[in-house]
């Protein structure tokens, strides 16, 4: 009897360190192929028919089949150190970056109490509704969140984030406030697509907040963020500072609202956002509707970008099929209209098809 007790006690002592170093590994993957069926390209830029499916990563479809622009793999490691403390790292390898795996998230998380969690490290910038889980295709309806909305060149930041969760009068109220900066030594979108010289893009003094209101089938999200933009261009090996008028920096203010309804078999999604860059207005919106028929969800979507010079929209039609408990097959047709004033086109008009599988594990 005593022996058993001692054995049990020893067993518990041995077990404890293992339990404390509990590491969860989870992940996601999307394998997507596609091509442009027809498109105008942009003659002035010598651009062939092109569908820019992902702005910040320059995920580009052309007339030949490709699996690169939207294919990605992510692995998340979360060390649960108990008593509310955890460390999380996420490694992402993307076709658009030639599957060069990088740490996209790396942060510590500490639960202050049942309502507040403090996080510090590298995270995704939660600007738009889908910004922080843009890579997790399984979590949303389409092949990708509408490209016309998700156009901004910076999508990560390093800093501090405070998350909260409250329940007030039948509403779940959650959100976060964050501050930090991002210094992208060679920004892909600005250096490779919108220009040919290496651009160092800095977003500093970032301060932002998000509030989510949830009740039954209704989900409302409000977002605001402000930052200071600083930019350097390398021309012929010489670094020069980019100026706007006679100003060395410019201030961006981003605000948005998203209303989503998941009612019975219907799914209605919407987003409306504005970025004000020193008075210049960049407006984006998106509306989508899906209808669930058992494992199948056909959907329609319209997304729009409007500014003084750059104007474009995408109409999409697609189908999500949840064929497996961890995976969904998707097929989508995208019709892009580029109405930018001459010299301000992005990639011209295009009609494209893409399909593939999203999974989580």
């Amino acid at each position, binding site marked *: 009897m005593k022996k058993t007790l001692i054995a049990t006690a020893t067993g518990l002592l041995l077990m404890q360190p293992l339990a404390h170093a509990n590491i969860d590994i989870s992940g996601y993957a999307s394998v997507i192929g596609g091509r442009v069926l027809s498109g105008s390209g942009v003659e002035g830029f010598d651009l062939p028919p092109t569908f820019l499916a992902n702005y910040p990563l320059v995920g580009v479809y052309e007339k030949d089949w490709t699996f690169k622009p939207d294919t990605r793999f992510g692995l998340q490691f979360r060390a649960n150190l108990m008593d509310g403390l955890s460390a*999380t790292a996420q490694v992402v390898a993307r076709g658009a970056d030639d599957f060069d795996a990088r740490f996209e998230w790396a942060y510590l998380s500490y639960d202050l109490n049942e309502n507040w969690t403090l996080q510090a490290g590298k995270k995704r910038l*939660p600007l738009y509704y889908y910004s922080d889980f843009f890579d997790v295709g399984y*979590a949303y309806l389409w092949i990708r969140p509408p490209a016309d909305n998700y156009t901004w060149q910076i999508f990560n930041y390093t800093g501090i984030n405070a998350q909260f969760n409250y329940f007030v009068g039948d509403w779940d109220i959650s959100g976060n406030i964050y501050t930090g900066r991002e210094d992208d030594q060679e920004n892909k979108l600005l250096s490779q697509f919108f220009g040919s010289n290496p651009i160092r893009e800095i977003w500093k003094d970032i301060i932002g907040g998000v509030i989510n209101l949830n009740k039954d089938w209704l989900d409302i999200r409000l977002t605001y963020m402000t930052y200071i933009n600083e930019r350097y261009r390398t021309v012929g090996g010489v670094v020069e500072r980019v100026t706007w008028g006679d100003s060395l920096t410019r201030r961006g203010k981003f605000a948005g609202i998203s209303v989503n309804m998941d009612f019975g078999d219907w799914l209605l999604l919407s987003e409306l956002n504005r970025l004000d860059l020193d008075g210049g207005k960049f407006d984006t919106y998106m509306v989508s509707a899906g209808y669930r028929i058992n494992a199948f969800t056909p959907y329609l979507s319209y997304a729009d970008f409007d500014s003084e010079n750059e104007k474009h929209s995408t109409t999409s039609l697609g189908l999500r099929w949840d064929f497996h408990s961890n995976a969904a097959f998707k097929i989508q047709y995208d019709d892009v209209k580029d109405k930018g004033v001459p010299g301000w086109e992005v990639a011209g008009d295009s009609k494209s098809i893409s399909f593939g599988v999203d999974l989580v594990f």
Partner: protein
Amino acid sequence: MNFRCIPALVAVLALNASVLADALVIVVHPTNAIELTTDDVSRLYLGRARTFPNGESAVPINLAEGMPAREIFDQRALSRSSAQLKAYWSKLVFTGKGTPPQEADSHEEVLKLVATNPSIIGYVPASAADERVRVVLQLD
């Protein structure tokens, strides 16, 4: 046709029907006197609440995916399909906003866990519940 198989077949069918038609019960530790609504249960299992309505810490335990009672629970308590729930959790897990409840592989494991800790809440088919746990709510 072997007629002797029929009673066995009937028994199997009856068993299946009883699992599907069986009520689920939400169970807690016998010393936990909390009262819960379906909404309270749903908020705990969706990661929207970390405590019972009285402020005491709560740890929900799920049944493993694919178990019949899990599917019934997802439908009755959470009003969502397994695929919808998986999409919901993948959004939270990969953005650092939450982790899904721990899973147990059997009804017995749920009962054992609940019986050892007043913070733990679980669910089992009504026919599986015994005196080790207290039934808080029945989901028909």
